[in-house]
């Protein structure tokens, strides 16, 4: 702002308007209007899916959040806190109150009740759908605050706000209907960072306590709070190592840690983790270190001797080393839990694939490809390093924070696709700093005062040789010669100014275009309904999911258990309202492996498993008719792998591949594949849709065997319009006590020839 005040290139009329008596107020008003417009743009660009389709919850996880929110609104806060959900993980149930981050649900519950109190009774579904857009407006505002702490430029904050408002990297997780934890978590992340920077700058207990409060809120909202827990200590640690320890750092860090740790332990899901888990030890270690450093600094002021100073330094170092050794010892001995697999796989990127297939099976946990960075951040990605470099140029406490954040978040975003989300804020901030620097340099800089009149230039000419010469020249040659005038090109000319401004403006406009295009085309499709274009350009909606889920809801018993792969657990619970065996909260690996085993085994093996777990219906997703590639046959290998992890003798991945190592579903499929329950359920009766021997699977692109599979322990209960969802009912045991396979063969008249009367190898009846 100081820059804009002191040097302005505006002509007089505009200057009067912008900088008259009320210049400050006018700018404040302008800023307010711009921020409101940014918030409006952020909200509006997230509404594509609501306008195109309808106001529903997308994806898988949000369906659980939505269900939990409905429970909260119906039953009140205390019941929600102690909610034991017996409709998931069927035989086990789930202690929901203690295994979820309640921040999201409580936030929308609070909004719901606030709106009711204001006499605006809005359906809880609409609040859930529109929560993410609303919070993205707040995120833009928080980014503005955060950036204004970083840069003195008046435009940096506003630029960062608009970047954050519409950057696709953030939109991808916060479109309307994406009722996920990230919806509010990114706002809390940025706002916590803002408060932290403020606290470090001012050294105030109040800002530190506010940081802790919002940190607590963040802990209640998202598991990604660990990022903050490690970033703030790292910042403090780097500051100490740089010799920038100050009493302000002591005050802000210790206040944040003491209050924030207590706040985070109030969440039942977190519990004692901040004391016991390795992920949180950095914060504790830096807390101890900062006490030592603070004490040393205090004593150093009291002591005259220099020798004491070195002694104390050595002591701090020794204590640090000893504490670190103790930490290692405690971790090895098991008092402190080691890194959890999810976090450990960020360091050892091959770990998940080998040891925890369930983590590796999620597509969001794959490494990021280069195009994704350009796709999600467009021009910000190449302004980002420039912004970080500028932070180095002017290295204050808060710039150190940006540098650390940038380095860490870039690494994590490179390892895992979904962590692009935590990278986006720092990219927006750094890019805005770089861009605002360019704009300030080129638009606001005025020509330095000309070498003034001849008399003065003569007097101090000796100080500036070249100026002297040019002054002499200009005095010697008459002004009328055009060639003697100062050249037009240069940083101060209107040409360069307009060129740069034009270029930046066009880049910004292109950025807006890109963001809108990406949001509209890539990130605004609800996965519940599949949209396809007909040849004449009109839209065709494939709504098989809801068709099947509503069939379950209306045509099955209230307590009929549905077995499906875990991907669909939340949606079945949310839309069909039926108990499921496994769901997207993959807390019990063995139970998932049980379902995987039932899906990948022969009927004789699967049926007892299903009976033991009281399964009534089995649901599979099949895309072979429509070419919908995210179906269960394509996920089948993960089921096999997860089951193999538990029962290596009974399920073998190798058996599902042909001798040449191909994964096939046609005539060449292995017997294990063709006898597996999943294969049978997917292709049951599929060949009857086609002329004989012409059955074609459009996902795998292969012709199916002429003889379709037969099912004897299940019967088809429902198949949706496009065959995407197929539901089977598990048969009851045979009345005569035969095995179901036998009974099925008997019913079909299996044996043409009369069996020879032969005494089978019977065993003695034991009563």
């Amino acid at each position, binding site marked *: 702002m100081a820059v804009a005040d002191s040097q302005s290139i505006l002509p007089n009329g505009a200057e009067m308007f912008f900088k008259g008596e009320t210049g400050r107020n006018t700018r404040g008003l302008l800023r307010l209007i711009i921020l409101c417009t940014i918030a409006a743009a952020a909200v509006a660009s997230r509404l594509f899916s609501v306008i195109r389709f309808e106001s529903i919850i997308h994806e898988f996880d949000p369906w659980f959040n939505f269900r939990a929110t409905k429970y909260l609104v119906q039953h009140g806060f205390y019941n929600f806190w102690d909610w034991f959900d017996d409709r998931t993980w069927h035989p086990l149930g789930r202690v929901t109150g203690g295994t979820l981050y309640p921040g999201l649900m409580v936030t929308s519950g609070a909004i719901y009740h606030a709106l009711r109190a204001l006499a605006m009774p809005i359906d809880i579904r609409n609040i859930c759908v529109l929560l993410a857009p609303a919070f993205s407006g707040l995120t833009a505002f928080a980014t503005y605050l955060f950036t204004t702490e970083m840069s003195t430029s008046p435009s940096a904050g506003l630029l960062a706000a608009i970047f954050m408002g519409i950057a696709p990297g953030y939109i991808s997780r916060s479109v309307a209907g994406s009722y996920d934890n990230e919806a509010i978590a990114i706002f809390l992340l940025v706002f916590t960072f803002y408060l932290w920077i403020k606290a470090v700058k*001012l*050294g*105030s207990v109040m800002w530190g*306590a506010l940081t802790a409060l919002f940190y607590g809120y963040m802990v209640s909202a998202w598991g990604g709070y660990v990022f903050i827990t490690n970033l703030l200590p790292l910042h403090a640690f780097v500051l100490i190592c740089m010799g920038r320890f100050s009493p302000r750092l002591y005050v802000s860090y210790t206040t944040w*840690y*003491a209050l924030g740790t*207590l706040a985070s332990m*109030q969440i039942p899901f977190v519990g004692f983790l901040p004391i016991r888990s390795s992920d949180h030890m950095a914060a504790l270690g830096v807390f101890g270190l900062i006490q030592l450093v603070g004490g040393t600094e205090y004593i150093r002021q009291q002591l005259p*001797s220099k020798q004491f100073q070195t002694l104390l330094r050595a002591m701090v170092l020794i204590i640090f080393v000893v504490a670190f050794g103790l930490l290692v010892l405690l971790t090895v001995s098991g008092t402190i839990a080691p890194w959890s697999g999810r976090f450990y796989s960020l360091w050892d990127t091959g770990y998940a694939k080998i040891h925890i297939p369930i983590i590796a099976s999620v597509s969001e946990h794959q490494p990021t490809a280069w195009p994704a960075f350009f796709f999600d951040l467009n021009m910000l990605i190449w302004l980002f390093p420039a912004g970080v470099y500028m932070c180095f140029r002017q290295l204050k406490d808060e710039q150190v924070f940006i540098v650390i954040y940038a380095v860490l978040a870039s690494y994590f975003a490179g390892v895992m696709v979904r962590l692009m989300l935590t990278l986006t804020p720092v990219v927006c901030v750094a890019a805005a700093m770089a861009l605002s620097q360019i704009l300030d340099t080129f638009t606001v800089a005025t020509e330095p005062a000309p070498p003034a009149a001849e008399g003065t230039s003569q007097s101090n000419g000796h100080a500036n040789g070249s100026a002297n010469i040019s002054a002499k020249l200009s005095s010697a040659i008459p002004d009328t010669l055009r060639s003697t005038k100062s050249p037009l090109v240069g940083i101060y000319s209107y040409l360069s100014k307009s060129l740069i401004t034009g270029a930046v403006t066009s880049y910004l406009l292109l950025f807006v275009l890109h963001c809108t295009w990406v949001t509209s085309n890539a990130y605004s499709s609800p996965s519940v309904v599949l949209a396809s274009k007909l040849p004449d350009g009109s839209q065709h909606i494939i709504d098989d999911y809801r068709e099947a889920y509503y069939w379950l809801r209306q045509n099955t018993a209230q307590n009929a258990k549905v077995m499906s792969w875990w991907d669909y657990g939340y949606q079945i619970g949310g839309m069909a309202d039926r108990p499921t065996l496994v769901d997207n909260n993959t807390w019990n690996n063995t139970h998932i492996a049980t379902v995987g085993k039932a899906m990948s085994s022969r009927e004789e093996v699967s049926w007892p498993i299903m009976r033991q777990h009281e399964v009534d219906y089995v649901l599979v997703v099949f895309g072979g008719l429509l070419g919908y590639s995210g179906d269960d046959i394509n996920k089948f290998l993960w089921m096999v792998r997860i089951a193999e992890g538990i029962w290596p003798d009974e399920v073998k991945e190798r058996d599902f591949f042909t001798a040449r190592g191909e994964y096939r579903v046609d005539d060449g499929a292995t017997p294990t594949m063709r006898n597996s329950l999943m294969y049978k359920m997917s292709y049951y009766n599929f060949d009857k849709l086609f002329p004989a021997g012409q059955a074609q699977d459009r996902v795998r692109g292969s012709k199916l065997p002429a003889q379709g599979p037969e099912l004897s322990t299940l019967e088809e209960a429902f198949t949706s319009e496009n065959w995407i969802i197929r539901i089977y009912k598990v048969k009851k045991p045979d009345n005569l006590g035969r095995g179901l396979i036998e009974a099925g063969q008997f019913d079909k008249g299996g044996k043409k020839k009369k069996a020879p009367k032969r005494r089978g190898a019977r065993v003695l009846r034991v009563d």
Partner: protein
Amino acid sequence: SSIKNTSDAQQIAIGVWNNYVDRTPQRTKLLDAFLLFLVTVGVLQFVYCVIAGNFPFNAFLAGFSATVGQFVLTASLRIQTNPENKSDFEGLSHERAFADYVFGSLILHFFCVNFIN
């Protein structure tokens, strides 16, 4: 090492103590007494935990972190009101520092009471 002998060290310690008694304002000494008290309470709790086991672990944590948190907040107040640190805390009056201290302590105690069940 830098310390030549014990009498030397003793000398220095006495010098530091005298310096402290002479130069520290009364209010800061009061804070220091409170800090000392907090350290004592914390150490006692910890020793009791070591001896008697940590069965209601949340109760131990609540009590212990109350002392640690209060110590840290009090130390912050002491730092902020120390005239030697004036340059670090421009625009932070002593009254404001105290109000911040009260704010932080209230939050701390709310969380501790909530956590102790």
